[in-house]
């Protein structure tokens, strides 16, 4: 089997080379991945540094942890503490906006005789929030606004403010709904003459079990101690307080739980570091969250980037990209979503092991997926030391969304750019290759055109002016063909020059012989003189035939074409040949109508002379030479056919060239320089026709055919 695959053209080759361009997006992709890795490392480092920074800010401040580390809200046996609230709280008596309670320790119950209290404390935005769920069979409100605050069911709140002053506040509204607390101690206030405290806002909502009070007060009002209780009045007539429940009493500063709102300091530290999309926790040794700042999700409605491009083109491109590529990218690249589950507020539940490690003194960073697998979260934990012991830990969390965004954006840009570059590059290469191959092909066509099938130079090659290699090649070929043509011309005209040079010596010999003839010479000498004359005559004929082509060229240059009937010329000539050549008969076949052509009749006659002389030379004696003129639409076909030896295969094309002869050299015969058929060709070409020689189909002779364009009768 010999399978031949066609060799790829220049265009295909260049396009194949263009595949190298495909490396561009690949390299770009590798680069983006590398960049992502660096970004992740950077993020890890940054997050770790943040954690360390926060931890350092909290180092050696045992008070923070001692205070909060004991019991945040006084009750030694309770686990009640102020927790940071992540969301805004609406004072409406419902706990829906409060974080879900973690376990029983989160919501301790304080029970009295007829009343029990489940308080929850939270802190947000410099406010202390309290949600007090009170179970009370009979909810009794103050009779009127003037009534003593202790004449009704109430929530009592006592603080030692930052200046050390004791204050006791009571929330005892006259009806459910929004209300304010009243101050009953200090600075002109008493149970009988309470002072409104607008800074403590509250909302009272009745429930089936009793009521819920949701209140808030600025943290600035709270000093080192805090007390909270619910008091119940069961008889609306007697209005005596019958039962109280709460983590502390409220009578005087001594019964209050020592409380420090450590958050306010830690928060200050955290807020300085505060970033959106970063969540910072401070936990104590018991894994309790002392402070929290930030959220993993970015602020809503953040303006999308890159909307500042104003150029029409870039906008059009963006629109196009959105319409086409983005859709594909959306399928291929996972864009980071901000719609993920942040997880609970308690880092221990999320990353307990890491917190444990931090609490045991080592700093770590971890990657994990969110519970819903929609985002990857990086967390860094760092221990907080106080007095050479670990007092707590800082946990900083961040999603990798920003990096993913950057990566996705980079990949999209990369692929869009690569697509454009590839398209343009391939297109450019294609155009370049097409142009190159067109130029080369044109050059090839020119080169093939320049030299005809017989190796004659037909015309020059127009030299290209391009300054590249192809231009060079074109110029070289042009010069080459020109030189070849000149050489050809030289060869073809050599006969003429030679003849001219020979003429003078011939004239010398002839005139000498003529002179000699005038002398009286012996008969012997006359014989030699005759031979000399004979030789001279032959030499003259050689010279004549050598100059014939040159003379013909001059004649052709000056010839003025006229319109004449080819039939008449051929008929006349053939009748002349019948007389001139006795050994052969001539068969003449011409069309009945005139065949009009444009040219010189005497040249046509000269051409016929040559053809007939050639045919007669090769025809076997006694055979007839067929001269036929046919009209073939636009061409006149003049053919001479003779019986005789066939043409050698390789000579058929060259027969009409200058100085080509296939005659055998015969001693004594007239010399043949092979100019006859060359003259035939010249005359045929002058008339816009062509000459060709073929063997007869039967192989018994040769047919010479001249095609001449005719003048079409209108």
């Amino acid at each position, binding site marked *: 089997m010999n399978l031949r695959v066609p060799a790829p053209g220049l265009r295909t080759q260049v396009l194949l080379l263009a595949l190298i361009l495909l490396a561009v997006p690949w390299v770009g992709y590798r680069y983006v991945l590398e960049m992502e890795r660096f970004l992740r490392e950077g993020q890890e480092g940054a997050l770790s540094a943040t954690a360390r920074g926060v931890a350092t800010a909290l180092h050696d401040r045992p008070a923070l942890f001692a205070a909060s580390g004991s019991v945040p809200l006084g009750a030694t046996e309770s686990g009640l503490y102020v927790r940071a609230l992540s969301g805004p709280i609406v004072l409406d008596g419902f706990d829906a906006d409060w974080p879900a309670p973690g376990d029983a320790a989160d919501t301790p119950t304080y029970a009295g005789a007829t009343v029990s209290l489940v308080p929850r404390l939270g802190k947000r935005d410099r406010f202390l929030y309290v949600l007090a769920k009170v179970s009370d069979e009979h909810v009794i409100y103050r009779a009127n606004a003037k009534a003593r605050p202790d004449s009704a069911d109430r929530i009592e709140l006592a603080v030692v403010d930052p200046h050390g002053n004791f204050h006791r506040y009571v929330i005892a509204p006259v009806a459910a709904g929004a209300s304010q607390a009243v101050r009953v101690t200090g600075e002109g206030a008493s149970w009988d003459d309470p002072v409104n405290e607008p800074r403590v806002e509250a909302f009272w909502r009745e429930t089936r079990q009793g009521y819920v009070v949701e209140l808030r007060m600025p943290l600035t009002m709270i000093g080192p101690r805090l007390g909270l209780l619910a008091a119940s009045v069961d008889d609306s007539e007697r209005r005596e307080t019958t039962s109280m429940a709460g983590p502390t009493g409220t009578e005087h500063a001594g019964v209050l739980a020592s409380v420090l709102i450590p958050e306010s300091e830690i928060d200050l530290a955290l807020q300085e570091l505060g970033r959106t999309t970063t969540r910072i926790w401070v936990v104590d040794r018991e894994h309790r969250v002392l402070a929290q700042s930030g959220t993993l999700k970015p602020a809503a409605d953040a303006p999308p980037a890159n909307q500042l491009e104003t150029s029409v083109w870039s906008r059009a491109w963006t629109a196009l990209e959105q319409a086409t590529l983005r859709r594909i990218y959306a399928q291929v690249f996972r864009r980071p979503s901000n719609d993920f589950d942040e997880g609970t507020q308690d880092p221990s539940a999320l990353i307990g092991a890491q917190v444990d490690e931090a609490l045991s003194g080592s700093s770590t960073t971890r990657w994990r997926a969110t519970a819903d697998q929609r985002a990857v979260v990086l967390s860094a934990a760092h221990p907080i030391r106080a007095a050479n012991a670990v007092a707590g830990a800082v946990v900083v969390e961040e999603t990798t969304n920003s990096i993913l965004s950057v990566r996705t954006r980079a990949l999209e840009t990369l692929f869009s750019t690569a697509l454009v570059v590839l398209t343009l590059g391939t297109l450019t290469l294609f155009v370049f290759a097409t142009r190159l191959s067109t130029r080369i092909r044109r050059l090839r066509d020119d080169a093939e055109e320049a030299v005809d099938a017989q190796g004659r130079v037909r015309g020059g090659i127009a030299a290209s002016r391009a300054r590249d290699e192809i231009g060079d090649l074109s110029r070289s070929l042009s010069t080459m063909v020109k030189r070849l043509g000149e050489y050809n011309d030289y060869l073809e005209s050599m006969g003429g020059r030679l003849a*001219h040079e020979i*003429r*003078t010596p*011939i*004239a*010398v010999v*002839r*005139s*000498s012989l*003529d*002179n000699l003839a*005038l002398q009286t010479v012996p008969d012997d000498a006359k014989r030699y003189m005759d031979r000399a004359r004979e030789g001279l005559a032959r030499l*003259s004929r050689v010279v*004549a035939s050598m*100059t*014939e082509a*040159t*003379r*013909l060229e*001059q*004649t052709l240059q*000056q010839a003025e074409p006229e319109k004449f009937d080819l039939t*008449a*010329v*051929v008929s*006349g*000539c*053939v*009748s*002349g*040949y019948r*007389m*001139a050549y006795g050994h052969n008969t001539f068969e003449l076949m011409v069309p009945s109508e005139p065949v009009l052509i444009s040219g010189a*009749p*005497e040249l046509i*006659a*000269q051409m*016929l*002379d040559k053809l007939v002389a050639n045919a007669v030379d090769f025809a076997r004696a006694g055979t007839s030479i067929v001269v036929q003129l046919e009209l073939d639409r636009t061409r006149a076909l003049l053919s001479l056919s003779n019986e005789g030896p066939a043409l050698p295969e390789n000579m058929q094309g060259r027969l009409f060239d200058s100085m080509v002869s296939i005659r055998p050299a015969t001693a004594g015969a007239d010399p043949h320089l092979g100019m006859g058929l060359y003259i035939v060709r010249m005359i045929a070409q002058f008339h816009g026709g062509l000459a060709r020689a073929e063997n007869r189909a039967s192989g018994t002779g040769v047919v010479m055919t001249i095609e001449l364009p005719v003048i079409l009768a209108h």
Partner: protein
Amino acid sequence: MGRKIAVVEDEPAIRENYADVLRKHGYEVATFASRPAAMQAFRTQLPSLAIIDVGLGDEMEGGFTLCRDLRALSATLPIIFLTARDSDFDVVSGLRLGADDYLTKDVSLPHLLARIAALFRRSDLAAAPTSQEEMVERGSLRLDLKRFSVTWNGRLVDLTLTEFWMMHSLARYPGHVKDRDQLMRDANLVVDDSTITSHMKRIRKKFLAVDPSFDAIDTVYGMGYRWSASG
């Protein structure tokens, strides 16, 4: 009286051969190898007839220049170009400069002598009255065999000697086809066929110049030419 022929030819062998044969036939011969030498002598004394080669040494066209200068000195002096250059262009150039004949060096000496004799005869008789019996009349054509002059419709057609002899050959037997060999023989000329064709073309042109409707010379393709009887 002694006829003096000037031979201007740069090839010594040819020059001497021509000089020898001319002397043998009784002519006085002066030979020159170059144009300046010839011209210098001509200024002093004009020859009776000049035979000039076209290429003279380094001067490719020296003969043409000489012919023009010589014609300027004398309007009637017979001038014959005898050269190796046989292109139609050269022939036309030479004749246009006022030469009486243009011969290639193929010409044999007897033919040359015939021409020289004819040219002398013509110049001798240029002024003499025409004798009737030396005229050939064919319709509008009149050939004066003594003066070698041709008229058509009474107007002179300026033919060279060779052309005149060809014309005479054709017109002697109107309607008869003269082939090229016959024409050559009658014109004291040995040339190839295409030279005959050129001569006939020139003759036709000269008649056409006198009479644009001239068509008395027929080409009989393959055979020769004929003076048409109707003409």
